[in-house]
């Protein structure tokens, strides 16, 4: 069983609506601005800890999340802000968490890598590569156990498909026939190691065959393509046909950690420029303007509204109280 190409997969998919295009655009803008502002705050020394930014990969989060319902569950990665924003987690809670404030999504206990919102089906970013995969399998198990028809989506990178948890989780989901969608965001690098340096395969999607799981490869810079593939996979899982994998070929603009990171070159400027030339937001805006889905003014309005919302959220975060060290042991245990 070889991975399907999206070019063939998408032909069977229905055309996406105007509303979906606008939705995809807005979610991507929200991610882009959230991340670039977060990057600035970090470089300015205002945020403690690590920051793995999602800029460049927006089409994947937006494309998948627009295919999901609120009660569908996702597990994310250390590069999880994009998933959280796209799943509808609020800016205030996210920025406050990055600032380590008690009003944050984790009450200041988790930081960037543990942002979650159970009310939005966001089962958490995760600091351990591949660890979210089995958890999504468990979430899908719970849904089926309870007789619900929600699905679970697990996001992971190309690098994490070399870890045991991924393989075990994929096999477990397959053998139990669980409603899990495996979304590999292949940005070409496991931290600083190119894909060619960590696996002999060209397409991660080929790994799905090892578990009897269908897979599809999509252009991860094309939000519409991702949306179509995700819609198919989610519908399939929801119908009880079992798990499926999507490999989205994408790229991160910033370094593994932070914006410019350690400033140690491991990618060529040409390569970065090449990917940026196919920027996912540019792509969808060009498409929306070309087919009349939106006007420039409408698109600009999205940017402006989002900027305002972010400015307000950052001000909120900065004004928020710090956690009280007296509450250090809060939530270590239940009960």
């Amino acid at each position: 069983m070889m991975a399907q190409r999206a070019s063939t997969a998408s032909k069977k998919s229905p055309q996406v609506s105007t509303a979906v295009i606008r939705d995809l655009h807005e979610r991507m803008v929200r991610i882009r601005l959230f991340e670039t502002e977060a990057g600035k705050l970090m470089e300015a020394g205002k945020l403690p800890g690590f920051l793995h930014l999602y800029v460049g990969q927006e089409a994947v989060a937006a494309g998948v999340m627009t295919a999901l319902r609120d009660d569908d569950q996702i597990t994310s990665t250390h590069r999880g802000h994009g998933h959280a924003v796209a799943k509808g987690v609020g800016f205030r809670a996210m920025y406050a968490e990055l600032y380590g404030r008690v009003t944050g999504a984790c009450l200041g206990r988790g930081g960037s890598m543990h942002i979650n919102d159970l009310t939005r089906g966001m089962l958490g970013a995760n600091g351990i590569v591949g660890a979210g995969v089995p958890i999504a399998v468990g979430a899908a198990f719970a849904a089926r156990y309870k007789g619900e028809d929600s699905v679970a989506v697990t996001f992971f990178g190309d690098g994490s498909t070399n870890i045991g948890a991924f393989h075990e989780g994929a096999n477990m989901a397959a053998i139990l026939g669980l409603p899990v969608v495996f979304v590999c965001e292949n940005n070409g690098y496991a931290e600083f190691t190119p894909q060619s340096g960590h696996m002999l395969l060209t397409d991660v999607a080929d790994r799905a065959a090892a578990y009897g799981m269908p897979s599809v490869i999509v252009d991860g810079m094309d939000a519409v393509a991702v949306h179509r593939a995700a819609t198919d996979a989610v519908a399939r899982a929801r119908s009880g046909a079992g798990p499926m994998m999507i490999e989205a070929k994408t790229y991160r603009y910033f370094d593994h950690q932070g914006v410019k990171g350690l400033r140690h070159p491991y990618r060529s400027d040409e390569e970065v420029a090449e990917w940026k030339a196919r920027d996912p937001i540019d792509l969808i805006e060009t498409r929306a303007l070309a087919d009349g889905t939106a006007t420039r003014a409408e698109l600009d309005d999205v940017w402006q509204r989002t900027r305002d919302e972010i400015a307000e959220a950052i001000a909120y975060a900065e004004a928020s109280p710090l956690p009280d060290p007296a509450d250090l042991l809060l939530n270590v245990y239940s009960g």
Partner: protein
Amino acid sequence: MTTTTEAPAATRKLTYVKAFNEGLAQAMREDENVFVAGEDVAGYGGVFRMFDNLLDEFGPRRMIDTPISEAALVGLGVGAAARGLRPVVDLMFMDFIGVCLDQIVNQAAKMKYMFGGALSVPLTITTASGAGLGAAAQHSQSLEAWLAHVPGLKVVMPCDAYTAKGLTVSAIRDDNPVVVMLNKVLLGSTGEVPEEIYGIPLGQAHTARQGSDVTVIALGRMVGEALAAADELAAEGVEIEVIDPRTVQPLDTETMFASVRRTNRVLVVHEAVTFGGLGAEIAAQIQDVVFDYLDAPVLRIGAPFSPVPFSPVLEKAYVPDRARIAQGCRRLLERS
């Protein structure tokens, strides 16, 4: 919720493993959200017959055989627990936690805390621990110290049939990840077990025998060995107090402190290697709080710093027993 510390009246003899099985079955009847997943737990009933007959009663929806994939197995439990179920996942041998430690330590244990309390992880992990069956180095360990070291986890060590049932029930009812360390050697031992469902409070030690001369804090199977040593020492006029912590995380140190204040001498015994074991933690806490009540340094007895050996003669020498406990007590009481 029934919570008792002492056995109610209607009891009969059950084996340790049947007591566990009964507690699990009753907990499954009590709460529809309880299910069991693990390797050969459904069709086969578990390699130690821990899950006998449960498939018949609860069916394949609630009794799930999984691939040999401990990371995915525990991860499935974490995800299902995060979504409101009460999974019981079985690791067969405790030694296997090495391949799924991330899911236990970094996911299950920390999720509630990292997420700002947004959820609970009511996950129960059952596993068989301990040496004594010639199972050698990878199927015999007692690794409670690894787990007790991790904030967010609870660890229980049943020492007999009564606690096997009651601690298992409490573990399932608890809203935190709890590791139930059953002891392989004790599986066939029998004891009085109440028929109805009951829980034993987690984090509450039990004084298995009262005495005035030495406090012996014994973990898991060592409780029985300590009680046997107590009989031996009683014939010499030495009365030892045996404390079974039952739960090593959380650890009921108050009961230990109170005992030490009376006896002034302490011995801690566990199957695990002495170095870095629970004995070290208990000794440290005792000297911290009741230093002024000690008449002798806290004595630890555990396994030597070696993997568990295979050959029965070596294994017998490896695992602490009643003779070593008695010897240790005499050493603590030695006066010229």
